[in-house]
């Protein structure tokens, strides 16, 4: 339901960059997606007002798909898993735009896994924010490709027996050129990484381990309180530099955070396409 009059109060950033007529958001109390929204907004705000005017948001389905629909910006809220082909086309057609894709873990790694691999292979200049809550939450708490081992969910009533994805390794192999992972607890680092990802020319992925107090809280943490989640993130995250000195056993159950890689040896895809078009038309410039 769209509001007919503004809320009694909203944060300055919300008034400036969000459609306050759609607030409050559909997220549960304490959901990490709101924090990711703020990180994206602050990253663009710090990079300059004109960047916001050039930004297009594309999202898939899932709670994470709602991240940009509240943004006062061009937004495509697309189908489950299909955000990346749409974003690819937009970037190729209009290379001057800053295209930001927000996806969930199921959205990016399960149903949209193929598109993710191929977008990384192309090294197209997109900023992809993957909100990883380790579960399918919009549908009520089912196992995802990122759910920890032995966790009970609605579709793993005897415990999760499926191994999970490491998005970093996947993206590295597929050819992405920037990857960072943070939790919602690392707010400033997350914001800075999103800034770097936007400035980076190439396929940039920022994975955010985010709290879902409602379902992940119930099934994974055992406590449906966002404050406990924050404490958990604080205690269980290991910086990538430190993780190199740790053994496999020590890293069990830990979230390795940090900036994993940044490459500049691969050419960007949209630029290649337009170079080809110029050559085909016989333009030298």
């Amino acid at each position, binding site marked *: 339901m769209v509001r007919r009059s503004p809320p009694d109060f*909203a944060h300055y950033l919300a008034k400036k960059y969000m459609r306050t007529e759609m607030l409050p958001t559909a997220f549960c109390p304490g*959901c990490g997606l709101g924090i990711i929204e703020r990180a994206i907004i602050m990253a663009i705000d710090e990079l300059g007002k004109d960047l916001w005017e050039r930004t297009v948001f594309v999202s898939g389905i899932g709670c994470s798909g709602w991240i940009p629909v509240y943004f006062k910006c061009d937004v495509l809220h697309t189908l489950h898993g299909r955000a990346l082909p749409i974003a690819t086309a937009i970037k190729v057609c209009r290379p001057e735009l800053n295209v930001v894709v927000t996806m969930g873990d199921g959205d990016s790694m399960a149903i949209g896994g193929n598109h993710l691999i191929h977008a990384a292979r192309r090294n197209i200049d997109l900023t992809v924010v993957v909100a990883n809550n380790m579960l399918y939450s919009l549908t009520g708490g089912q196992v995802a490709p990122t759910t920890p081992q032995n966790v009970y969910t609605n579709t793993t009533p005897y415990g999760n027996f499926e191994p999970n994805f490491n998005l970093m390794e996947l993206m590295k192999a597929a050819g992405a050129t920037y990857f960072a992972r943070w939790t919602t607890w690392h707010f400033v680092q997350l914001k800075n990484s999103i800034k770097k990802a936007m400035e980076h020319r190439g396929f940039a992925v920022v994975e955010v381990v985010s709290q879902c107090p409602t379902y992940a809280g119930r099934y994974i943490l055992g406590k449906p309180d966002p404050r406990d989640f924050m404490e958990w993130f604080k205690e269980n995250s290991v910086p990538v530099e430190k993780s190199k000195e740790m053994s496999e056993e020590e890293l069990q159950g830990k979230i390795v955070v940090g900036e994993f890689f940044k490459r500049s040896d691969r050419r960007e895809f949209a630029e290649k396409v337009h170079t080809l078009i110029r050559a085909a038309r016989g333009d030298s410039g």
Partner: protein
Amino acid sequence: MRVKEIKISEDLCKGCYLCVWACPREVLKISKERNRRGIRPPFPAHLDKCIVCRLCEYRCPDFAIQVITDEDERMLEGIRSEELRWYDRIRRRDELLEKHGVWWLR
């Protein structure tokens, strides 16, 4: 920078208390009364302790809290008219549908 007030939106706050948890100076407390949305909102119990670190803002997923300084006040004033123009569009749509009925259903 000195804090003038800490504004908390009644329409937007969902009562997750991440702000209360985040505050290093224990400025915020949870009110005993429920508001009209059935939520016991946080309130600034010790405003004098606030050091404008804005950690409560960073942790709030609902853009419901802001530490207001003189500068914040000016910025909020400056964008109000722009915000209202989008509400005008909704009002115009409603008026059109009221005036003509939903013409594409006929």
